[in-house]
């Protein structure tokens, strides 16, 4: 019964939608890649029929949109067929990016929560800090990232941390926004109860505000971890784009290797999906422990 429903509830729906997307993708591949074939043929002076174009669009070297099987082949080739320590292995690069993501996400989460706590508890911080936290987010990170990295380098911080800090920079914001809301979500009567016990702010925090903010926290965490990954990838550019998925994307883009871009993109997306799903599981587990009515 369990197994059956796993198939029916998980594989089937995802599979169906996937299949649909795949079909659309193939169709798009034909349409987006056909003009190039037509041009080549035109330049060569040999007219070409649609049925001749069709198979060609599936195997271009630099397609506008690579066909799914090309991407799959590339991913297979760069994950399974290469030792994971190799610089040509996508797993290796994914790991580099993942480590920066996780570090950045960790710091970002802690920082975001601390800021939210400060904002909720200290009115001076609420009034003065929040506008500037917002303003900080409107600074295009790619523009100042090099400066940050240069400065950090100058004070002797190099390696994983500068990249992670860029993840942090992007990921702390959803956490601040969500947690400020979440920490303020307890009902008046629940706060009053704490008030009557003359609970200290830290007790009110741990016994009321914190548990009450859980739905907001986990929602924010999902967004934050996804953005962290984006941040880590962005952060790989100004650190010299030496390794990591960002470097792969860039190199792919630089040399017009669409297939490589797409496979790196898929790796990044798969990584993100996995991370978000892990956070989702944690969410469910915490909710169950908190006795939420199913």
């Amino acid at each position: 019964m369990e197994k059956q429903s796993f198939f029916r509830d998980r594989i089937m729906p995802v599979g169906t939608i996937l299949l649909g997307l795949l079909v659309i993708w193939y169709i798009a591949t034909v349409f987006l890649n056909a003009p190039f074939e037509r041009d080549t043929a035109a330049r060569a002076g040999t007219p070409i029929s649609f049925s001749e174009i069709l198979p060609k669009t599936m195997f271009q070297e630099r397609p506008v949109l690579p066909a799914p099987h090309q991407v799959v082949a590339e991913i297979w080739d760069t994950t399974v067929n290469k030792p994971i320590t190799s610089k040509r292995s996508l797993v290796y690069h994914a790991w580099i990016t993942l480590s920066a993501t996780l570090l950045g996400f960790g710091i970002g989460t802690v920082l975001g929560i601390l800021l939210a706590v400060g904002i909720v508890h200290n009115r001076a911080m609420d009034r003065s800090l929040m506008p500037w936290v917002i303003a900080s987010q409107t600074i295009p990170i790619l523009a100042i990232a090099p400066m940050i990295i240069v400065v950090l380098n100058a004070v002797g911080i190099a390696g994983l941390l500068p990249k992670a800090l860029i993840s942090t920079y992007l990921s702390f914001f959803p956490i601040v926004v969500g947690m400020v809301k979440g920490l303020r979500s307890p009902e008046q009567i629940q706060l009053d109860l704490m008030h009557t016990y003359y609970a200290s702010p830290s007790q009110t925090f741990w016994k009321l505000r914190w548990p009450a903010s859980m739905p907001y926290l986990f929602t924010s965490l999902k967004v934050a971890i996804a953005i962290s990954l984006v941040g880590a990838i962005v952060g790989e550019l100004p650190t010299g784009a030496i390794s990591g998925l960002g470097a792969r994307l860039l190199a792919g883009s630089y040399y017009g290797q669409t297939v490589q871009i797409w496979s790196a993109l898929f790796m990044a997306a798969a990584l993100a999906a996995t991370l978000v799903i892990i956070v989702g599981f944690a969410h469910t587990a915490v909710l169950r422990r908190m006795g939420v009515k199913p």
Partner: protein
Amino acid sequence: ADKVVLQLKWVTQAQFAGYYVAKDKGFYEEEGLDVEIKPGGPDIAPPQVIAGGGADVVVDWMPSALATREKGVPLVNIAQPFKSSGMMLTCLKESGVATPADFKGKTLGVWFFGNEYPFLSWMSQLGLKTDGGPDGVTVLKQGFNVDPLIQKQAACISTMTYNEYWQVIDAGIKPEDLVTFKYEDQGVATLEDGLYVLEDKLKDPAFKEKMVKFVRASMKGWKYAEANQDEAADIVLENDATGAQTEAHQKRMMGEIAKLTAGSNGALDEADYKRTVASLMKGGSDPVITKEPEGAFTHEITDAALK
């Protein structure tokens, strides 16, 4: 060993083969140097890195270096391994461009980030406005690849002889379908990959000494690379941490790069310098530099290194 940090202008590729060869072949080590090579990327400005203390010496193009100098970061050229410029404008024949006179009304792809200066001074020489008006050209900021040409979003795009041009060819477009304009031929070429350091650091004799050794070893690397192109390309591939470069492409690039470095022993040719400065000062309404730079290069290092 003395530590030297070198900041490249772009990602690891045969364009910087000399340095990788020097490191790999132990030329630096022989001089008692421990050289760290930092690859660049799309938004790494080497001048910023050196101003922030992140590098001792940087590879940069002269327009950008001179502009930086005017902004108060006194960069000095200590060596010029690249004799000639590899930049050109590559156009599709079918878009109707045959001579510079045909540019009017066309869309042209240009790299920015400091690389646009030669283009702008060329256009001002041609008397073409770059604001997209009908009697000028429309300028696109082109990304890092040649897609705009292939997709016909632009009539012409910027390419380097050693890199992007071949990507266009790889994309299945025949050389005879293309028209190219080398900046070198148009008389607007500016000096490309040179080595730059901060002026005040040169006052320190120990640093100077280090640079002399560095330039000497680097030039040895360049000459070795010119002579052993396949091996040099392999060394570059070895050092590419992205694992995205292909052997064929790097070998070809090495071949083209060798043509550019061929004429140089490392010393800056003053005539080239003058031409570059002149071209930059002309830059139309928005000149790159406003006054004749002074002390922007020195022969001291190369003189000592090439003794």
